[in-house]
């Protein structure tokens, strides 16, 4: 009896929940965009990102919104689970009637959302997921990506690595899709640039569970001239500490993906490695008008300097606003057609969403790490335009599945 009552209650609760979270009665004066990211799973990266797009949103609406309508964002946490992200996407699309989806940090969440976008014919702008598959081997008409991909960033580093004398390389990379892509792309581009390189050792520590001491020793044992590192976050801190202690980096060049990003460099404090070749975001050194305006506005609003995620979030929202203004419609097909080849004004210049593979030409900064006032910074940096590190449109189109 009681069991039955409980069951009824559970079913009733479902209905009540449905009523409570029904359509929010959007006024015609707003355009709503759905945003999904892994806020609880990796807050160190997603919180600055959120602050970035919130700043952009404020600026967009202060400047009159989208043709007089207010731009509104419904932001949700997927907890880092792809299945959850798809469920939230369903809710945003069917119940909240958002005009498009944006966000994602983890590659698998990005891929799940991209496939959902393809199936339900909704536009999805992936902001952060790095996997090459998103726009190439598993690309589709409804998915676009903002941030420079694994391949692009690896190619930027491989270009620098090709200028070094080092020929014997060792790699260390977290053992999952992103890490494998990053190593494959680096090897490929470096071998193209310098025929006589050889890779003498590969280490694949489990993501965020690196046994840093042993791994450092294993790399050392191979006596490479240079090391290519893909580990990040807590793994990087461990690797730097244990490698430093064991003299792994002495007399060796280290090329390291993403390590110049403040998200990963700042936590290392005074122990940040010196002289590593990295991709990152040297906000402290950017003095040109575009970058400076964004950085100042961000610091004023949040009382802290921006991180890479902040820039990605800001560019994402600006891309959305530019798209909606340009398309002057919320019809998905029109939005997709408009976004193909769309130019967007960003703090670091105009970026283009390539028609051929839906990848934006946003770039990254490449430089060497150094220590200043007990903090790691990037020096000798230059801005690498993403367009220069992408395959030609014809080649890229060939990598995508036929529509």
């Amino acid at each position: 009896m009681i069991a039955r009552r409980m069951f009824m209650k559970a079913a009733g609760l479902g209905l009540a929940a449905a009523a409570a979270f029904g359509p929010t009665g959007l006024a015609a004066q707003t355009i709503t965009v759905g945003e999904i990211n892994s806020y609880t799973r990796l807050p160190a990266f997603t919180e600055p990102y959120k602050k970035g797009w919130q700043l952009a949103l404020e600026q967009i609406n202060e400047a009159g919104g989208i043709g007089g309508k207010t731009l509104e964002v419904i932001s949700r946490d997927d907890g880092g689970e792809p299945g959850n992200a798809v469920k939230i996407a369903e809710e945003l699309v069917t119940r909240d009637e958002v005009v498009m989806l944006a966000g994602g940090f983890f590659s698998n969440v990005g891929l799940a959302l991209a496939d959902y976008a393809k199936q339900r014919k909704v536009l999805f702008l992936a902001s952060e997921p790095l996997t090459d598959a998103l726009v190439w081997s598993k690309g589709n008409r409804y998915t676009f990506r903002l941030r420079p991909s694994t391949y692009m960033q690896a190619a930027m580093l491989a270009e620098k690595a090709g200028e070094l004398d080092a020929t014997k390389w060792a790699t260390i990379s977290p053992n999952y899709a992103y890490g494998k892509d990053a190593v494959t792309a680096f090897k490929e581009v470096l071998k193209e640039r310098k025929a006589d390189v050889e890779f003498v050792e590969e280490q694949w520590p489990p993501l965020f569970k690196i046994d840093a001491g042993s791994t450092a020793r294993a790399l050392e044992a191979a006596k490479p001239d240079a090391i290519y590192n893909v580990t990040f976050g807590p793994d990087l801190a461990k690797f730097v500490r244990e490698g430093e202690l064991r003299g792994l980096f002495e007399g060796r060049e280290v090329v390291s993906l993403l390590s110049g990003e403040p998200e990963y460099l700042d936590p290392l404090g005074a122990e940040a490695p010196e002289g590593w070749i990295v991709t990152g975001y040297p906000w402290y050194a950017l003095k040109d008008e575009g970058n400076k305006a964004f950085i100042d506005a961000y610091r004023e609003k949040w009382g802290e300097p921006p991180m890479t995620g902040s820039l990605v979030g800001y560019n994402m929202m600006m891309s959305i606003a530019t798209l909606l203004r340009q398309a002057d419609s919320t019809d998905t097909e029109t939005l997709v057609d408009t976004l193909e080849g769309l130019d967007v004004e960003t703090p670091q210049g105009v970026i283009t969403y390539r028609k051929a593979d839906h990848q934006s030409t946003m770039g990254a900064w490449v430089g060497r790490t150094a220590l200043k006032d007990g903090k790691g910074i990037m020096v000798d940096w230059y801005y690498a335009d993403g367009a220069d590190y992408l395959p030609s449109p014809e080649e890229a189109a060939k990598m995508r599945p036929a529509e």
Partner: protein
Amino acid sequence: MGFYFAQLLTGLASASSLFLVACGLSIIFGVTRIVNFAHGSFFMLGAYLAYTFMAVLPHGILGFWGSVAVAALAVGAIGSLIEIVVLRRIYGAPELFQLVATFGIVLIVQDATLWIWGPEDLLGPRAPGLDSAVRIFGEPIPEYDLALIVIGPLVLAAVWLIFHRTRWGVLVRAATRDREMVGALGVNQSWLFTSVFFLGSALAGLGGALQVPREAVSLLMDLNVIAEAFVVVVIGGMGSVVGAFVAAVLIGELNAFGILIFPQITIVLAFLVMAVVLVLRPWGLFGRPEPTGHTGTVPEAPFVLLTAPQRLAYLAVLAVLAALPFFADAFTLVLLVDIFVFALFAASLHFIMGPAGMISFGHAAYFGLGAYGAALAVKYLAASMEVGLFLAPAAAALGALVFGWFCVRLSGVYLAMLTLAAAQIVWSIAFQWTEVTGGDDGILGVWPSDWASSKTAYYYLALVLSAGGIALLRHIIHAPFGYTLRGGRDSPLRTESIGINLNRHQWMGFVIAGAFAGLAGGIFVFSKGSIFPDELAIPRSVDGLIMVLLGGVQTLVGPVVGAAAFTLIEDWVSRLDYWRLILGLIILFIVILAPEGIAGGAARIATRLGARKKEAA
């Protein structure tokens, strides 16, 4: 030579850290029988607290080691507080129910830590005086590693002395063997448990604090350490401190040398070893076989067949669900499909846990095998959804057939751990075999056939499959096969002695549960369109356990109620900031209010009301 010696030392240093976490877990489990998922949270808290104390206290040798000690004591205090406020209230609940509470604590600590210390990783100071490397056989060895190598055995010796040379230690050891008897002899069990919790959590805190000079303090520390700590405890033998030490050294060295030979498989190495140990010596290297039968639990009332009004009520619920698409919006249907999937998943887990009495910590493996079975068929054989949904339970049943053969030879928590190891092995195959499974990038484009692609159609399909599945599971429970399983659970000896091959029945029970979990996975994959290794990972198994335990193990409707409640609550709170904190508090609230689960609690209230009515009449 020097190189291998250095690698040996590196392995020993990792072993020391591992030992500190694992030995606290082992002590807590040995005495209180609590599978403490929050142990990793204590470890993380130790690291964060030590980081803060190191920043506040004067720098230098005294400040550093003082911070470590204070952090350990503070974590011990937090652990005792949790024991007094939460766990003490639910020792009477069915076995394993405390697990749900500890999971609630994990969520609360996660968000509290984020709130207090912020999201960025924190890099603490290196240990003063131990911040460089010395050369041994020409190889650089960090001094701090050498310190850790000394600290591990020192702690082992201290704990051993406490256990063997103090009255308190004697009582604790007695409680590990027979806690009823210790209680009967007049020992205040509550305080004994609280003090054990203090020691266990303080050791976890110490482990965390000692990690500060080695790694950045981060929010990922809790979940990263817990699985490996379980492995060490199981290999060493539950409740054995010496065992934990030996196992920690084994795992530490295995990792250190494993990465020289197979850098790709370090991810599963520990779980493979655990599986082998469990198969060969189920109670671990230094553990003792578990006393047979449940200790201290009252035999459960048998499940009863439905009465006519109950039958009508279920039909009414089904009728409401069937009518829903006519007036509910599309997302309500999506959410309900999720609930159907997890209700079936939870019911299949309940089948193996409740009537069959075999606790599984790795049920996600079969959910995932089903989902991957269907997805792979779609991807490589261009199979239709119908074929995929048929293959899903078949693939899961096949997996359960293989793993079940090993698992049913064990019982109790050892069985649970072997299922965990099996699930981790399956997970790592899905994660690592990129060429076939797509690895972390998963399998995409697994959508329903055209006729089922509308939300309403898929809703009906999911409703029919999961309601049918749950009804079938109920039917099996009430069939002779189900009675045999229950007989085997309550009295294996008698069951065997009347000529029943219990092992074979349990094995088949395992396969049936696996098949239905696989069906749930099949429904899931076509509703989401993609599948990733996360669905086979530990958190999914834990979700299942929480659904079953929250709903109530001792009622048949419990898992369904638990699945619905958990899915709805999670869907609702995840819209809020700090939702994990809120979810954790809700879980604790339910746990304390209804220690036999939601459905069990409701049944108790009903019985009480009924009794009162009778009295009045």
